[in-house]
């Protein structure tokens, strides 16, 4: 019944949906940031990040595909005993868009280099979707640098056939993300990426629409295309057992992207259980009615799960 009510409200308000195409473009540095942006050079790139500061253990938040640090807006200040740092991966947000491979291994090394640049010997590494796959990759290569992993709807648990991988790589050309109209963007955000739309999601839609005609977004389009190819080409599924780092895995029951509805189908819970049980030290929390951006759809439940998990696995 709540779903029907939501649908009826959506129908009634369809004509009232705001549009942003008529507004002037915004540049990366103008993106909303719950904590002011800073920039630091990493491996020759300008990397943007948000840092709450403080003396507590560090949680390093890594966003997913085609998103940026502000997707963690409901986490950045939710853990006062910790220092939260959210990074804009290269290719995204307010960071540089270099001509780079954008593979999971490459991203993982960027994350470690960023930690080096900030003097962070070890952190709790949190990742969403592709950021989760990056976190798993980083933990495989540098296990000593991570006290724990917090994964929100992580990619990397699924398998794809050679044909699926080729199809996705062919489909996601370097200009495809630039072709999305505002109506496509809204549909993508409201139906695939998020299950609960609020003012935060609305702002993210506006930013995405207003960035699409900038040179910076053309670079993001390259990053998206290469990242997708890299995600399906570099799965961590077969190496999950090697990760001994304590890992919290959180999925929404209404995740519309994992498992991939076109190529794999099935229930999110199934793939979540598979991936978590394959980890040497994994714990799974399923959040009812939350979608792919589970930490945004139901931030209270997600944050509570993180708090409990970190209490059980205190950083060194």
């Amino acid at each position: 019944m709540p779903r029907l009510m939501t649908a009826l409200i959506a129908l009634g308000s369809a004509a009232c949906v705001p549009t942003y195409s008529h507004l002037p473009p915004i540049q990366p540095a103008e993106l909303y940031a719950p904590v002011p942006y800073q920039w630091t050079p990493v491996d020759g790139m300008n990397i943007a990040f948000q840092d709450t500061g403080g003396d507590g253990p560090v949680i390093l938040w890594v966003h997913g595909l085609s998103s940026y640090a502000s997707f963690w807006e409901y986490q950045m200040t939710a853990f006062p005993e910790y220092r939260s740092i959210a990074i804009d991966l290269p290719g995204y947000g307010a960071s540089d868009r270099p001509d780079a491979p954008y593979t999971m291994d490459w991203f993982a090394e960027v994350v470690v280099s960023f930690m080096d640049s900030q003097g962070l010997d070890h952190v709790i590494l949190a990742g969403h979707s592709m950021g989760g796959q990056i976190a798993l990759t980083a933990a495989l290569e540098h296990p000593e640098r991570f006290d724990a992993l917090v994964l929100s709807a992580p990619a990397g648990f699924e398998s794809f056939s050679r044909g699926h991988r080729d199809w996705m790589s062919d489909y996601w050309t370097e200009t495809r993300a630039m072709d999305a109209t505002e109506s496509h963007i809204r549909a993508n955000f409201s139906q695939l990426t998020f299950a609960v739309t609020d003012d935060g999601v609305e702002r993210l839609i506006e930013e995405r629409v207003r960035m699409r005609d900038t040179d910076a977004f053309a670079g993001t389009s390259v990053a998206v295309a290469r990242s997708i190819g890299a995600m399906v080409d570099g799965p961590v599924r077969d190496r999950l057992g090697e990760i001994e780092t304590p890992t919290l895995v959180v999925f929404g029951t209404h995740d519309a992207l994992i498992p991939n509805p076109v190529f794999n189908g099935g229930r999110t819970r199934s793939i979540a259980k598979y991936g978590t049980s394959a980890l040497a030290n994994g714990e799974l929390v399923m959040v009812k009615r939350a979608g792919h951006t589970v930490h945004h759809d139901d931030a209270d439940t997600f944050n509570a799960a993180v708090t409990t998990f970190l209490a059980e696995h205190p950083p060194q």
Partner: protein
Amino acid sequence: MLILLLAGWAAAQETAAPPEIRAVVPEPSPTASPLRVIGLVQSKFTNTDIATTNPFLDGQVIGPLGGINQTTISDEDIATYTEWRVAAFFTWTPAVLSGRASLTAALESDFAFGDRSYGTGGNTGGGFGADMVNLQTRRLHATFKPLIGDDPLTVHVGLQFLPDGAYDPTAAAPDDLFRSGGRLMFFGSEATGISAYGQVRDDWGTRLHYRAGAFTLWESGLGEPDDVTLYLADAVFHPAQAMNLGLHLWYLRDRGLGGAGGAFGSGITSTLSELQGGAKLDFREDGETAQPDTNADLFWVGAEAGYDHSLTQGALGATGMGFLNLGSFRPADREATDVRGLLLDGEVRFRYARGKGSVARAEAMFTTADTPGGDYTGTIGGNSYGLVGALNTTHGSLILFPDPFAINRYVSVVHDPSFGGQGVLGLSSSIGFDPIPNRLTTQVGVSHARSGGEHIGTEINGRIVGSPLLFLNTGLYGGAVLGTDLPATPWTLYAGLDWVMF
């Protein structure tokens, strides 16, 4: 120590002021292969008490049960057969024309296992030792994409699919065709002519889909003014997210005198119309054995409104449309008969759980009935002018309304929305559930039809369909229609497979 040294150096480089963002420039998309092929395989292994008795029509049976297609329903005889449809769509886009022109051809073979060897005629073949001679041409058209500003325009010339809405059938999603315009209930088949499908876009997205088209449905005698031509103008506006508001105006000019259309004729006085469940008007006067030559000028004026007909924006989709039939039939040496018919249709769908099949839907369709004498007050569509001229796809029924999954046996109780001119109130509903989202779908449905206050039939149906591979579905389907005036309860049970190969 090294990390701390690096950190110290890096800290000196940090800035709170935004640097200039450096961005890689995307590579242009690689040139697509000039040849695109899409394959389609459909198969049905059927058990049913519906049998065909006319060998002339055995290859392809179309129309209402118990109609002049000579189908029978019997408790004693169970027909068991396997049908196949294999089709291939080829589109050649020469690179030298930069994607501005292409040629499309589609070839199809429909047959039943063991049907016959060296048989001629449509939808036959597959017998022992058979060399298949059954190959049908479904598409043969050139496509041009002229540059008109930034808005796309696609022009098809030749044998093409003719839908009754504003969406280009070569690019539209199925629901754009099934749940917009006339929902294919008026026109949904191949036709030869020219059509232009365009879009008007702004930064928000597509604001308008439009179509203009002219088709020759029948060229009776070359050089003679005895053709059946159809002209269409359609526009669907998108004022807001997922919203459709459409207007449709079509004109059919029938100078075929009722005799065009091959063995069955065409038009409102033809056997063709009756064969497919459309209205057949009798303009004969006392003592006349043949219908008088009849011309017609027919108009359709339609309006539609819809919200998220593809269920891509949310959980709820709703569509509604109404089409008014106007015009006149002019039998020779007799008074003209004016046309005033109406078709209304409304559908609501609600996705209540994950998976493409976890949808509850309800649809109501109403057509006015003809009344004896005076004007023709029923509806009319492509079924009076082509074999098969129209489809009815969204009801979920297998027998009460025609099963869109049919291959060679496209039969049902209410075969045309006009219901032979008697008018009909058709209700259908179904609820599906995906035990495995996007991989396994179950569905049960009920549909009901009434005409003139009389019960025509009530169908109960169900299906379980799996999708083991991408765009490949296979499943079991079953349905029975209760309360008909047919000699027995028509039922069908079949295993089906459909596979679209990209």
